[in-house]
């Protein structure tokens, strides 16, 4: 009974928040509702008894959306509305709507066909983290390792892109030091 009520509260709240994310013209509103929606999604995991996944959802998306905020801060004035350029609003609406429809059909088809089976149901006596770890290192080992390699590649790429002036310190730059030395010598003379 409590789960029923909680599910609908979470469901309605997430839907409203994500609608705000899409509809709002203010970057602050859409980012904040995105973050709040991501936090509320973790509520579903907790309701299903998957505590570990719920917490992971919380930690991962809190961090990820925080990085998005950093970009928003650099590109937009948060207190003003963003003017969007729409060349062809009808086409955008049509394509977006079709995409959403396809996703809904994709995810609801197994539900309608009663084809969902829990391959790895929660066992008593085995913690959430252990259960996830077992599956990751047996059945899903290859995707897990591939994801790790992908992240490693992304990390190296990031370091190479950002590392051009790694030794150059903004606050202790050599150029400024040289200028200082020149000034000091002038003072001595």
């Amino acid at each position, binding site marked *: 009974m409590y789960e029923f009520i909680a599910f609908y509260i979470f469901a309605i709240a997430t839907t409203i928040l994500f609608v705000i994310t899409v509809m709002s013209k203010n970057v602050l*509103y859409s980012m904040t509702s995105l973050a709040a929606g991501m936090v509320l999604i973790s509520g579903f995991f907790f309701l299903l008894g998957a505590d570990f996944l719920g917490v992971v959802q919380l930690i991962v998306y809190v*961090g990820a959306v925080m990085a998005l905020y950093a970009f928003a801060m650099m590109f937009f004035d948060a*207190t003003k509305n963003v003017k969007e350029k729409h060349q062809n609003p009808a086409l955008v609406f049509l394509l977006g709507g079709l995409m959403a429809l396809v996703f809904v059909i994709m995810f609801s088809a197994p539900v309608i066909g009663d084809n969902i089976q829990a391959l790895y149901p929660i066992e008593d006596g085995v913690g959430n983290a252990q259960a996830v770890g077992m599956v990751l290192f047996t059945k899903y080992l290859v995707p897990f390792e591939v994801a790790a390699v992908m992240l490693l590649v992304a990390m190296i790429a990031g370091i190479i892109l950002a590392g051009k002036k790694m030794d150059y310190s903004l606050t202790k730059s050599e150029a400024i030091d040289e200028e200082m030395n020149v000034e000091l010598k002038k003072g001595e003379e």
Partner: protein
Amino acid sequence: METATMLPEVTAAGVIIKAVLILAVIAAIAGFGTYIERKVLAFMQRRLGPQHVGPFGLLQLAADGIKLFTKEDIIPQHANKIIFAVAPVITAATAFIALAAVPVFPDFTIPLLDIYVPSIASDVNVGILFVLGMMAAGLYGPLLAGMAQANKWGIIGSARTAIQFLSYEVVTGLSILAPIMMVGSLSFVDFNNYQADGTWIVVYQPVAFVLFLIAGYAETNRTPFDLLEHEAEIVSGYVTEYSGMRWGLFFIGEYANMITIGVIASIVFLGGYNDFWIFPGWLMIIAKIAFSFFFMLWVRAAWPHIRPDQLMWLCWKVLMPLAVVNVVITGIVMMIVG
């Protein structure tokens, strides 16, 4: 829930009483903490601190409270009003939600009504991750506050929040990973039971303990890492435009987070609420949390602020490699010994 087998059943009434208890007691302690902080800092800096209101300045707390509640509540003209109002609530609320999953006071039964009040309001078996995640979510408070107030100092404050969060979250997670590997569980109760024989995890994991404390201070933005509201550089950072109780909520949230960090450090590294020699467990945990709180004040009195680039340098070039090496060594030792 296998730990609760011998104990009475946890009812909804017990949990609600517990939640109200946490709110009331921690909020009061957070207020009293400001008084202690001023007194301890004054002692260390050879000043007197608050002493005019009441005996030893004890009623300074009440005076501050009256001031906070009666101050004019200002919302700047061009600010985003909704986000501006929500931001302080996020900080305070997440700080208290994080406290829901840590054992704060010993469990007891209310005699006449026969209601059992558990020591943890919600015993999720991934307690540590939940608390860390909730504290991380709390940093949305400063971030949103800075961005909503249409003030350049605020924007700088929130930009610093983002960089500080993104870097120190890594160190917190990695440093606490080594003890988690040793215990093999994410539940605070298991951590406590692991140290029941009297050897604290800090003995095995001194590096992780130091790293966790440093990262914890950065996450609760205590000096020397309080770049978010560095008053000598950026006025007050993200709280520049805040006044009255909205500002007070940020403050309560910060102090509640300090207590949470103290609780995590005490339970994960310092032996938890086990009995020690002749001292009962509840006294030990309070003493440890109090010492950890005092230690934060001590650090604040002893160290100057650091620059943002020094903060980044410390995190990515010193602490993170150390934490990774610590995790690897722990793994190798566990493989050989265990």
